[in-house]
């Protein structure tokens, strides 16, 4: 399929599109800035295997090059199960290119972020303003010449340039403007929505994010590949291990390193356990927002048992930092497998069943959530939805089945799919996914192979401590690895895993040194939250609360 795409692109666009070498088997093309929109439209609207999912748009800064900036697009075709990358080089003095927000609605916020962090301007973008940094910020922090500790203070909270309509101010109009958040119970502390209300009906809802922007990407550029792992914990902090695995997988692809089967199965087990605890938090928080307070305690009670397992594995409950490049912090301790079995057979099903009994057929809950915040499958895909929110719309897209990694194709599990994409379906999909995850963990525990869990590559994986203390060669190797760091070959990779919220992608650019040149995280909830205005307008305030809770917006991942 790669050749076919390359051929058709060359036929149609000639020199504007140039294929780039297929590093690690990935398909990339360099596209001229003035043709990017046409190329995107062509790819998005192909008859066969259209690239209907825009996964990511980001910027990269190459100050040594003539064309300093590069805007990188990652597109995915669900039917063709193919991903391609488009790279658009831009001049330093005129980093302008057309926006593709008209083709994929998902591009909206991704382009705003590229503008915010790099200063790349997108012509035709509906609302090109800062998204992660605050209004008073000067400069573009991810540029290589921006010093990492240069701060700008914000004096007072702003309305990010949004003008209150004249009618609301004089009180003659029929609507009020309500500021929801960020210090608001439903907003989980970090989301802000400016809502124009008529009575209780929402006429317009504008979300603002960036309240937990912590500079993950800039910080990662200062650290070594291994040192980035603790930072990844704090992305989606309710299912931290999935981020560890996603990042480790990306670096391992960069290194072309395969980890042994035991390591893979361990990663599957911890990913599925993390998925379960993520869904438990989402459901608990969503139900608390709806007034059903008790399931919160039931969900968290059984989450503690999973935390005990994780703590036994790596010493930490939440910020686990468990994976290493090519390896893991420790192997499974003795008795862990039996404990895990007990948890997944007795504890977790208990809380899922209790919540099911209390809530799923409760008339009040069904009335509050059915038909609320629904979105069609095509529109959801256009917005860049992935994960349970997309599956609730009816599209059975799951990377574990579409692009199986770590032997997921050998496990027997179902992919729950909803009908209407409304809040009720998202809830049901998550409940069922937890049950499916339990099945996967059971099968993985049964099939857990013996053997090493770490790859046998001395340039990447630290030697065993016993050998370091007893053998000179191992000591030297250990020292070299710590001081020099892991040195991957220059190149770019993008890997994606099916995280709890959807497709979690890591785009890593390596320049051959021990520091990653660029790491871009593709957060699943970033694309989903963009659709908030579309989901809530016309509904009531109480519906907004229900919808935001069901989308599972985790600020650590959203804002990075």
């Amino acid at each position, binding site marked *: 399929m790669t050749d076919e795409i390359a051929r058709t692109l060359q036929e149609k666009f000639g020199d504007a599109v140039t294929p780039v070498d297929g590093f690690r088997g990935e398909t990339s093309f360099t596209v001229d800035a003035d043709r990017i929109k046409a190329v995107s439209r062509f790819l998005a609207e192909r008859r066969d295997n259209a690239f209907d999912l825009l996964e990511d748009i980001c910027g990269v800064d190459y100050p040594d090059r003539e064309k300093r900036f590069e805007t990188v697009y990652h597109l995915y075709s669900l039917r063709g199960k193919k991903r391609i990358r488009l790279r658009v080089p831009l001049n330093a003095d005129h980093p302008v290119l057309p926006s593709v927000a008209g083709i994929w609605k998902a591009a909206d916020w991704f382009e705003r972020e590229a503008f915010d962090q790099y200063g790349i301007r997108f012509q035709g973008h509906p609302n090109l303003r800062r998204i992660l940094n605050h209004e008073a910020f000067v400069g573009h922090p991810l540029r290589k010449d921006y010093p990492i500790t240069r701060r700008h*203070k914000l004096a007072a909270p702003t309305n990010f340039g949004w003008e209150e309509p004249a009618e609301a101010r004089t009180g003659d109009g029929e609507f009020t403007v309500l500021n929801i958040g960020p210090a608001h119970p439903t907003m989980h502390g970090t989301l802000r929505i400016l809502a124009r209300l008529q009575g209780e009906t929402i006429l317009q809802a504008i979300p603002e994010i960036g309240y*937990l922007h912590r500079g993950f990407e800039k910080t990662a550029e200062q650290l070594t590949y291994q040192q980035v792992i603790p930072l990844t914990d704090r992305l989606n*902090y309710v299912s931290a291990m999935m981020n560890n695995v996603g990042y480790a997988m990306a670096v391992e692809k960069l290194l072309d390193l395969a980890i042994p089967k035991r390591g893979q199965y361990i990663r599957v087990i911890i990913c599925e356990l993390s998925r379960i605890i993520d869904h438990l938090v989402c459901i608990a928080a969503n139900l608390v927002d709806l007034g059903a307070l008790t399931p919160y305690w039931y969900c968290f009670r059984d989450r*503690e048992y999973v935390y005990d397992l994780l703590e036994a594995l790596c010493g930490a409950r*939440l910020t686990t930092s468990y994976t290493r490049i090519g390896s893991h912090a420790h192997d499974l301790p003795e008795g862990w497998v039996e404990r895990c079995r007990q948890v997944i057979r007795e504890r977790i099903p208990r809380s899922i069943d209790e919540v099911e009994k209390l809530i799923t057929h409760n008339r009040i809950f069904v009335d509050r959530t059915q038909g609320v915040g629904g979105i069609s499958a095509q529109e959801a895909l256009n917005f860049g939805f992935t994960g349970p929110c997309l599956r609730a719309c009816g599209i059975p897209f799951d990377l574990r089945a579409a692009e199986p990694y770590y032997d997921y194709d050998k496990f027997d599990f179902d992919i729950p799919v909803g009908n209407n994409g409304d809040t009720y379906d998202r809830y049901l999909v998550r409940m069922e996914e937890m049950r499916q995850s339990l099945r996967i963990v059971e099968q993985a525990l049964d099939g857990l192979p013996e053997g090493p869990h770490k790859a046998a590559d001395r340039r990447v994986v630290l030697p065993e401590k016993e050998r370091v203390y007893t053998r000179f060669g191992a000591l030297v190797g250990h020292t070299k690895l710590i001081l020099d760091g892991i040195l991957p070959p220059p190149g770019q990779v993008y890997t994606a895993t099916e995280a709890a919220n959807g497709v979690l992608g890591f785009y890593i650019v390596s320049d051959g040194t021990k520091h990653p040149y660029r790491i871009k995280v593709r957060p699943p909830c970033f694309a989903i939250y963009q659709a908030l205005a579309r989901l809530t307008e016309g509904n009531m305030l109480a519906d907004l609360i229900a919808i935001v809770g069901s989308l599972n917006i985790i600020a650590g991942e959203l*804002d990075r």
Partner: protein
Amino acid sequence: MGLETAKILRSSDLVTRPVDAIINWCREYSLWPYAFGTACCAIEFMAVAASHYDISRFGAEVIRFSPRQADLLIVSGTISEKMAPVLKKIYDQICDPKWVIAHGACACSGGIYNNYCTVQGIDTLIPVDVYIPGCPPTPEALLDGIIQIQKIVEGESIRDPKYRGD
């Protein structure tokens, strides 16, 4: 009502000691938290409010979402420069007497983030009474922090300058 009465009573030590004892007793056992949770530490706070650790045993279960009704501001998680004015505003809105817990390394000092967008400790914005280090601190550490606040409250008096209502 409360602070004016205190002014009158503060002159006499015989009166202030039992009054202090009563007032401190009721304040320390009924600390209503305002959970200003932004990041990972907020998830640990939620775990503390859950049944395994159960913050309500200490009387602190009534998590009020209105700053006017809260006593204890628990800042859990990193505060970004964008969030800083919001934190200050909420702190100002909380009615006296109030205490602040910096929960987690990011709130104490910026944690592992020292870059263009993070505040290096909330004590650059608001006064802090108890610092709980950890990334995230274990739930027991948060409970210990609340007990420390209770001890601080026990040691207060209506003759302290902050209660004089001057």
